[in-house]
């Protein structure tokens, strides 16, 4: 029987600089096998000799030969990862947890709200939805970042804007004069402009804890029911297998029972957003 803690080795085949501290890495398994996952599931990524940390792939689950992961430099392990080059070897474990229940989104208006590098898992979701856009009434992407320089996937937005059935709204917290002609303010202010039939809608939120908290409050205020709000929860999962305890939130293990939860599941749980 295979050891659940052993990572698969993979090679970095491509690195894209997204912002000053965010890069997108493309990994390919050394043994040439596929790496299937469903959108919203996460993986454990190892930098050998340094550390292991959880990330959610940002590529389409239909692409199984390679896997993209967008990573912000935020700690010891990501610091080293950011210094790695194409051709270097890393380890992968997973995929783990439950992803987005895309089937349940059929015929609905999907409001996607992302903050900062939180757009990474949402890109995977968007790419999944794009494959069957006719199945959904419409998709609205509200994306907020700190400054125009902090926007990830800048090069993808021109293409995405051409997609029928997808509306895109973006905001930045602050910017220099003349450098931004879209909304200025935190991401929740975009929600005032959103035109959706809330009764037939789901909202999908991913971003830093503080953004998820205020977005959830805002969505409830708009009339979303707790079971219509999907959140990608973040904790520092160490094992990813429901054992090590780090991601426990109430009686849930985020790694096994999540990382995607509805607000209905979390509303009575202590300390959901730190």
């Amino acid at each position, binding site marked *: 029987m295979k050891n659940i803690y052993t990572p698969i080795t993979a090679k970095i085949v491509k690195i894209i600089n997204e912002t000053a501290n965010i890069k997108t890495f493309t990994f390919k398994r050394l043994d040439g096998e596929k790496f299937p996952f469903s959108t919203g599931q996460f993986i454990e990524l190892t930098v*050998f*000799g340094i550390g292991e940390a959880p990330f959610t792939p940002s590529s389409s689950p239909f692409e199984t030969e390679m896997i993209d992961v967008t990573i912000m430099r935020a700690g010891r392990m990501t610091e080293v990862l950011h210094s790695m080059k194409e051709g270097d070897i*890393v380890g992968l474990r997973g995929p783990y947890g439950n992803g987005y229940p895309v089937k349940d989104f059929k015929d609905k208006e999907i409001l996607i709200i992302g903050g900062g590098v939180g757009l990474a898992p949402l890109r995977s979701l968007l790419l999944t939805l794009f494959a069957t856009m006719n199945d959904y009434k419409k998709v609205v992407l509200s994306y907020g970042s700190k400054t125009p320089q902090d926007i990830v996937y800048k090069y993808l937005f021109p293409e995405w804007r051409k997609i029928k059935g997808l509306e895109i709204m973006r905001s930045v917290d602050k910017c220099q004069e003349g450098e931004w002609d879209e909304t200025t303010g935190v991401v929740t202010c975009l929600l005032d402009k959103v035109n959706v039939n809330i009764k037939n809608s789901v909202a999908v939120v991913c971003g830093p804890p503080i953004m998820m908290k205020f977005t959830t409050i805002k969505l409830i205020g708009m009339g979303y029911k707790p079971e219509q709000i999907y959140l990608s929860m973040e904790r520092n999962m*160490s*094992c990813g297998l429901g054992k090590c305890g780090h991601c426990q939130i109430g009686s849930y293990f985020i790694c096994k029972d999540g990382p995607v939860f509805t607000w209905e599941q979390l509303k009575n749980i202590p300390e959901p957003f730190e």
Partner: protein
Amino acid sequence: MQKVLSYKDFVLKIKNIYGENSYLFLPNLDNTYTKVSFNDEVNIEEKSLNKIRMVDPLKTFFFKTKEDILNFEKENFFQIIVGVKSCDITALKILDKIFLNKDYVDPLYRFYRARTLIVSSDCPKPEKNCFCNLVGGEPYPVDGYDLNLSYVEEGRYILSSGSKKGDEIIEKYFSDFNDPYKDDIVKSDNLRILAKQFLNENNKDYFLDIEDYYKIVKDGYDLEDNWKSESITCVQCGGCNFICPSCYCFLIRENSESYEQQFRDKVWDVCHSTGYGRVAGGGNARKYKFQRFRNRYQCKFVYRKENFDMYACTGCGRCIDVCPGKIDIRKVIKNLSCSVRVIDKV
């Protein structure tokens, strides 16, 4: 299946049933273990068997403080642990549910679990910090053991089997011994009753209905002032976590030389440490001491109860023994129950 014999007879027999690479752990009078190899001399202290649980929790035999989870196979390994107490066996059930559940099996834990014989013994003399009776336990093993030794009188124990493995061993190695007389059983049962009476008397100030532990700790979640005052003397040493027989949290420490030579340790971790709930970017699920302190109680009495329908506290009392801040889990809950009931009345 039951037999009656002396502790010495038992040890001398059991010592030789497994060969090289098998180890026998025998209790000492100071509540520690002596590790014995199959051809070593043994020092048999009958009195040590009648003492309470060891200082180290039973989990250390299955889930070591630090061990490589990728390179652990040892040929012909086997361990026999003698003198395991009821509170530790109950805690092992929690560990089994975490490490051997249907979703994922921890290979390291399974390795040790499959290669261990658990020989338990009654607790004829519980001590002042023992409180298994408060959380639904008994001062003698009810199940979860392979063999059990119940004290009858000096030089006389009832050996009972609690598993298939235990049956086989009694049949193969202990068939020459007599079955217990009725009198032996009565004597040993009386000692069990006396031990329960001691526990009830000793813990009478803390008595709550067993179902109430869940309700009180859950309902008391928001009583921040309670948690703050109870945790004033907590220095966050993590001693209560480390020494708890059912605390299972760990961290994977990546130690590989390269991708071709992989090493990674499974290392104990504790929810009392500040870094436990930290995430990238500096967020922390439990920033303040009282939150981490409270989390341990929620974990033991609410979260694991919801997951597994059993408390992850078995009343061993080690956390009381170890705490430099003199925090007593029984008092914390008793005080909380008073506050919760005041609120219920309002």
